[in-house]
């Protein structure tokens, strides 16, 4: 019987090796190991064996079963692998064909600039506030130390609707409104972005509508050096860590002392070029210490509180940062312009 079993094993293994399909392997499995299979048939004859021979033959039979089973499994796996490889080969596609297009929209360049500035100041503890674009004469001028007859509030410079209402000429009225809301009691830091309007004829550098962002910090013991430090942080974040800032004395009715801030020209690194008109510096924003009359009208005691304020034009910043050479580009909305900057 032993010889019979060994012959059976050799025969099975040879058939398995020669097989090329999974289906045939299944047939082989049935032919040898199935209920009516050869091995089962041989084992059925075990009953005729002696008590001593039975375990020996039994063990050989088990070996044969294991050998056939293992061979079957190995061959199956090999064939499956081959089949999978063939399938994958057939599934190969042309990866150089384009993908399904996704419609690409995006923000306006000015929105990006404004958000960048907002986020930068939010990081320094500022809140963002908004105000009406149609303002009262009081908030646009009077509360900012620009009484009637002040030369800086020429009727020719503003779009009046009635004697008392006009399109705001700056976002500063939001400063006055915020001070009033906080009732002269609470220290605060805020910035206010928004649209403003002036009587300018639209050309490459003027627009009757433009954007402004102003900031205001009111507290006890606010120093001018705090303004300088804050603006320096802003300028370095916005224009690069290697930029230097310079403050120059200036004049605004709502601040005293007043400053204008320049940054060192990136084009020539401060050596002087056509962009900076040879000075090495580029004017970025204006600001100063809040005028005591403005604090007072806002309800803050100028003997106790002080503050600083600053204001800048996102259009100008965008023009400097991205080399936009005509302010009208921002409002013409030519798709070819918008697409250049929506990732900015």
């Amino acid at each position, binding site marked *: 019987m032993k010889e019979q079993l060994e012959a059976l094993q050799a025969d099975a293994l040879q058939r398995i090796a020669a097989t090329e399909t999974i289906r045939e392997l299944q047939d082989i499995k049935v032919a040898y190991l199935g209920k009516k299979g050869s091995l089962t048939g041989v084992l059925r004859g075990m009953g005729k064996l002696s008590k001593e021979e039975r375990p020996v033959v039994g063990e050989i039979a088990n070996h044969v079963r294991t050998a056939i089973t293992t061979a079957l499994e190995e061959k199956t796996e090999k064939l499956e692998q081959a089949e999978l490889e063939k399938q994958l080969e057939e599934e190969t596609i042309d990866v150089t064909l*384009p993908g399904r*297009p996704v419609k690409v929209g995006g923000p306006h360049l000015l929105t990006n600039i404004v958000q960048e500035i907002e986020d930068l100041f939010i990081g320094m503890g500022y809140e*963002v506030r908004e105000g009406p674009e149609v303002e009262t004469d009081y908030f646009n001028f009077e509360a900012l130390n620009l009484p009637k007859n002040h030369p800086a509030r020429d009727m020719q410079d503003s779009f009046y*609707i*009635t004697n*008392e209402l006009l399109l705001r000429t700056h976002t500063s009225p939001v400063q006055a409104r915020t001070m009033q809301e906080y009732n002269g009691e609470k220290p605060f830091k805020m910035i206010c972005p928004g649209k403003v309007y002036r009587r300018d004829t639209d050309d490459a550098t003027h627009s009757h509508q433009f954007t402004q962002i102003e900031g205001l910090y009111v507290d006890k013991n606010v120093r001018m050096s705090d303004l300088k430090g804050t603006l320096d942080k802003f300028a370095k974040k916005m224009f690069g860590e290697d930029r230097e800032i310079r*403050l120059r004395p200036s004049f605004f009715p709502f601040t005293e002392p007043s400053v204008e801030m320049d940054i060192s020209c990136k084009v020539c690194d401060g050596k002087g070029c056509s962009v900076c008109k040879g000075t090495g510096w580029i004017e970025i924003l204006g600001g100063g210490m809040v005028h*005591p009359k403005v604090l007072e009208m806002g309800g803050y005691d100028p003997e106790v509180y002080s503050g600083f304020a600053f204001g800048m034009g996102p259009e100008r910043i965008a023009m400097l940062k991205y080399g936009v050479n005509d302010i009208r580009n921002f409002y013409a909305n030519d798709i070819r312009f918008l697409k250049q900057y929506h990732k900015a």
Partner: protein
Amino acid sequence: MLVSYNWLKKYVDLGNLTPEELAAKITKSGIEVEGVEYVAEKSTNVVVGYVESCEKHPDADKLNLCQVDVGEEKLQIICGAPNVAQGQKVAVAKPGAVLPGNFKIKKVKLRGIESNGMICSLKELGIEEKYIPTDIADGIFVFPEEATVGEPVDELLNLNDAVLELDVLANRADALSMLGIAYEVAAILDQPVKLPDEAVQVEESATVANYVSVEVEAAELNPYYGAFMIKDVEIKPSPLWMRNYLMAAGIRPINNVVDITNYVLLEYGQPLHAFDYDRFGSEKIVVRRAKHDETLTTLDGQERILTDENLVITNGKEPVALAGVMGGLDSEVASETTNVLLEAAYFDAITVRKTVKQTGLRSESSTRFEKGVDPNRVRKAGARACLLLQQYAGGKVIAGTAEFDRLDRTEKVVEIDTPHINNRLGTEMTTDDIASILKRLQFDYKQDDDHFTVHVPTRRGDITLFEDMLEEVARIYGYDNLPFTLPEGAGQSGGLTVRQHLKRRVKNFVQGAGLMETLTYSLTNERDVKRLISPEVASSAASPVALAMPMSEDHKYLRLSILPELLNVLSYNRARSQVNLGYYEMGSIFISGQNELSEQPDEQLRISGALTGIWSEQAWQQEKKEVDFYVVKGIVEGLFDFLQIPVTYSQTKVTDMHPGRCAVVKVADKTVGFIGQLHPTLQKQLDLKETYVFDLNLEEVFAAYDAVPSFTAIPKYPSIARDIAFILDKNVHAGDVKKVIEEVGAPLVNRVDIFDLYQGDNLEEGKKSIAYSLLYQHPEKTLKDEEVEESYQKIIAAVNEKFNAYVRS
């Protein structure tokens, strides 16, 4: 303000500073120098020459043959200038000379005769035409007799001078004078100021009272009026140096009397006016408000109609000058003038400003009065002009001044102290530092330990408060020397409000959906302000908000819809061959319920979009698709889905929209906007292809937004899907059927989607088939088939009854 570098040197030692270096220092200290220009481009080899003889060219009528002595040699020069004559001293460009514009002078032959050089006009020497005296505009320049033959002309004519262009802001009226600039530069450089001479020898034989008296009826508008009398003047050109400085400062020389008043105006910042005494019309000056409709012909020959807002100088009968703005033609100094009545006065700034605005006459004088002149310099300026008239016009200055005087000349007092200054600036200045800054500014002060009582000179009318002095100290100390610090106040948490976050999220959503953000103008024209107004806006707005004085018809009204401007932007792009566009804008419209505005209009935040052209491009596995109603609706639906706000759409007619392709959008029965196709007529008018728009009131949308959604458990039990296709009449709206399914299916039907629409073959005429997929789900149990079937049948019955529909098999 144009500041001549050479002129400034008369008052302050500028050391070795170049004009550019000086400009940089002035800018850093607070007055921005916008540019440095030279009076003329450099020329070489141009000297003073003496015209020894001058004859007509034998072969040319308009040319003269001159023999000119230029010192080392004599040159034969042919000159075409009409005013050349024997005995003149002129500017000669010798052969080899280079004039501005790189014009090289060579020996030439003109009509057969040799010409060895050129006799120059001021224009040829590089002086700007508008500053050249009119009488020599077409001719050569003639030097005064004392000029030395052979001397180079550039210094004589001040051609090498640099002019600093200062941008003087409203607060620094003092910087509108050479003396003011001198004090500023002296403070910057820590140098003294050399003041000009005002001491005049007067004629004691008579007093001014013999000639004129002064009466002021409006003292509040004219607190000081001084009149000086100068007799026997000779009108001629002013000295060359004065003409040079005036031209450098941008003023065209006229004659000695006018030039002297202009010169002192520039030097002291105090406007003066010279009347021809003999044509003044009386011996009495009366200053008063003009009478209504009174007229005055000003120097420029224009007749001005006055009101009582204007202040006038009169001869007791009629106006002879518009105070502080411009003199009258009748009493103007002319070539035959011999006796001059000189005015030095202080006029109210606001009155002058009003007059300037009313007449449009802005002059060097009015500019200074408008900003405020130094009360302590009015008399001094008068005296200075008298001295110059004596020196350069041969005038006899009569003793005394006819005056009206109620002028306040007291100095403002400001208290400052070292700790307060350091606290506000963040500096560590010493008391000595501050004292030295006050000295450099030439401000008088009394010091008590670290406290200063500062007497601010009246030339600095801008300084009245501690903060003003703080700025003075800071700018002389140098803004560069301030430290960099950050606020030490208790930290606050900054951040965006819910509304600000929402605005950003909505923008991000629509951008993600493929729309590009635009920014357009809020001001629009009469046509556009009436267009594409959302129905709920139309019902609440009275009339559009209009500007009182628009600059143009294009920007006259505040918009009531973002869409018209967005459509203009589409047209603009289309005209540039950009035809496939999806644009949106978020911004305010301005609604007022009032016809006569007395309150601020309601500023309503809206988002509007406009789409046109191809939405999906033809690709290898995708068909080309134009924008249609459902592209726009999909974006709007997606937005509301994202915000989780339930919304309904119903067919409506909106002006300017396609009547069959427009829907209003409602949140909880409130109209919040509309979507649809533009009316084809409007499309055509705007030269647009099929265009679809949406317009939503974000105020209402945000109000419906639930900022902190409460947690809803994810359903645990399985759902069952069922599909139904109904055959319906063509005019039945898919949404209406959906609504019935939802109502009848509630609460088991969780969701209803429309997944197919079919109309055409195999269907009866006038019918369509719409397929719905229903999702059944119960939050607390697994639904049984019977329960679903029962609901399903109910739905079929209800739809059948309501719409006469039957299920398609």
